[in-house]
């Protein structure tokens, strides 16, 4: 386990470095370009030269690389990610923090459902139960998981929002909503999260199902399943306690491996729905050419992946009794 934690740390460090060096290695000055295009699109930027100079000195772009890197790291440590170019004086970190709860809520909720449903489907299919039901479902979800989630968004909104008028087309909440723990507020938020959640679930469940299926096939042939049968245990008991339980264990690790693509996909889905999480923030910031916010989001995505990997690494020994190392 220590090895894994060390690896996660390495990932983190490498990511931070890439995030720092990549923009600087590429010729071109994004800040100037961003401010320039802002002027041409009609936004007023007072004292262009002074602003550019201020940014440059703040970010020490005129200083040697080592000093820049030092500043970068210390800024990170204090979560100072800069000020928003589009909405000064809001800071990047405040904007990100505001959008974070939405993403965490949506992602957690959707991934949990997707993982559970997908795994159960895959396990049932691999075990051989109810083939008439599981085969077409497996086929459906496999196909769906090969298509990027936000494409499903088009279909969803077209049908459920336009044709049927059941769900809102975009956003995380109604514009006229009063926030608070009222029933209307909670229902409103839930209603807005159904479509994006469905997109995430349908586009990722297939992946879990496929993984679980092959694990279940392997487990089914194990000796302990045969012994369970010779003990005269009921089919459902064998399926749940001997099959599913043992097939599930490596799945948690798979969750860790897949997390980066799950996050990538959900960012795009949120973006499509203008959901006020990181994805929605990303969309508006790209549109506004708010360079620093986008950079901040990038950094945050990387950090969140690392964070999730850490949690999984810590959670795994608790869930998997075979990992308890006896010294």
């Amino acid at each position, binding site marked *: 386990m220590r090895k894994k934690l060390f*690896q*996660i740390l*390495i*990932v983190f460090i*490498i*990511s931070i470095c*890439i*995030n720092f060096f*990549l*923009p600087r290695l*590429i*010729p*071109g000055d*994004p800040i100037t*370009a961003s401010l320039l295009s802002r002027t041409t699109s009609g936004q007023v930027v007072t004292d262009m030269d002074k602003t550019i100079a201020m940014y440059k000195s703040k970010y020490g772009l005129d200083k040697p690389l080592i000093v820049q890197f030092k500043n970068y790291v210390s800024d990170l440590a204090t979560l100072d990610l800069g000020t928003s170019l589009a909405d000064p004086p809001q800071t990047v970190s405040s904007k990100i923090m505001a959008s974070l709860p939405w993403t965490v809520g949506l992602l957690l909720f959707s991934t949990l459902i997707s993982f559970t449903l997908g795994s159960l489907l895959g396990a049932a299919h*691999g075990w*051989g139960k109810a*083939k008439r039901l599981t*085969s077409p479902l497996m086929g459906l979800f*496999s*196909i769906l998981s*090969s*298509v*990027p989630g*936000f*494409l499903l968004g*088009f*279909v969803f*909104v*077209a049908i459920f*929002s*336009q044709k049927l008028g059941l769900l809102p*087309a975009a956003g995380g909440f109604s514009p006229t909503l009063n926030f608070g723990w009222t029933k209307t507020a909670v229902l409103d938020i839930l209603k807005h999260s159904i479509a994006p959640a469905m997109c995430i679930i349908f586009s990722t469940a297939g992946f879990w199902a496929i993984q679980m299926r*092959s694990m279940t*096939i392997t487990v089914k042939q194990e000796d302990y399943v045969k012994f369970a049968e010779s003990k005269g245990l009921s089919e459902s008991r064998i399926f749940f306690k001997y099959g599913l339980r043992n097939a599930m264990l490596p799945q948690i690790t798979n969750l860790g*491996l897949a*997390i*980066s*693509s799950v*996050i*990538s996909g959900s*960012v*795009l889905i949120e*973006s*499509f729905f203008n959901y006020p999480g990181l994805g929605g923030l*990303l*969309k508006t910031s*790209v*549109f506004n050419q708010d*360079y620093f916010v*986008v*950079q901040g*989001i*990038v950094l945050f*995505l*990387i950090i969140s*992946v*690392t964070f999730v*990997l850490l949690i999984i690494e810590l959670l795994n020994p608790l869930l998997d009794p075979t990992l308890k190392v006896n010294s």
Partner: protein
Amino acid sequence: MKKLTASFYIGLALFFLLIIFTYVTRLFYDTSLVDIGSKMPYLPPGADAALGTDSFGRDMLASILVGTPSTFQIGLIGGTIGLLIGATLGLISGYFGGKIDTIVRTISDSLITIPSIAILLVAALNIEHLTRFSLATIIAGLSWMYPARTIRAQVLSLKNKDFIKICRANGQGELDILFRDVMPNLLPYLASTYVLSVFTTMIATVGLESLGLGVDGDYSLGTILYWSTRKAAVVTGTWWWYTPPILVLTVIFLSLLLMSIGLDKVVRPSDSAKV
């Protein structure tokens, strides 16, 4: 060589049919209709425009014909580069082991956890002039890890097989063994990871384009989708704007998925349980 299943051939056929359709139809159809204002905007599919027009007056059929090649090119180029880098690194790291293996493995395992969208955003924002080739290369830089892992695992298992030991005992040079004896056994895995590579490249490309950050000046399938969301096509009921690109993309991804399934049966025959 084990036999390839029908799934693979169907997928391959679909893929090529789409390519042929795109390139052949271009000969008959006027692709300049993709320009803004070439027809009346918001025309539903019908007599005036086979697939309708968008809010800029662009003909949808022309848009598809112009947009699809871009996705194909980036996908195939990116997939090829990714496979070349990944397979080579996997081959070397698996065969020679030792320090090289440790370094390659650490880098690969670390990079695999970085969400691709993050790096793509950094690249898209900072590179002033993004070309198809440069985008493909960047994506390849993010997707080489999967081929590397797969090939490495295969090489490791082959390395210790008896027939390789016999080659060595016969005095064959290491590089010679690598290319003449190990490589041919990797072909099904190379094919399988190539398909996967192309697949992930295309997904990443479309994702980036849907945010409006695609290749400069390119009007690709993802870009069409981007503009359709910009102009709220779903809300205004302009379904003919986003449906053609989604259909084309679905066909592409489906064909790649079928190919991948077909190759998977060759690569992992034990996985197919009796249905």
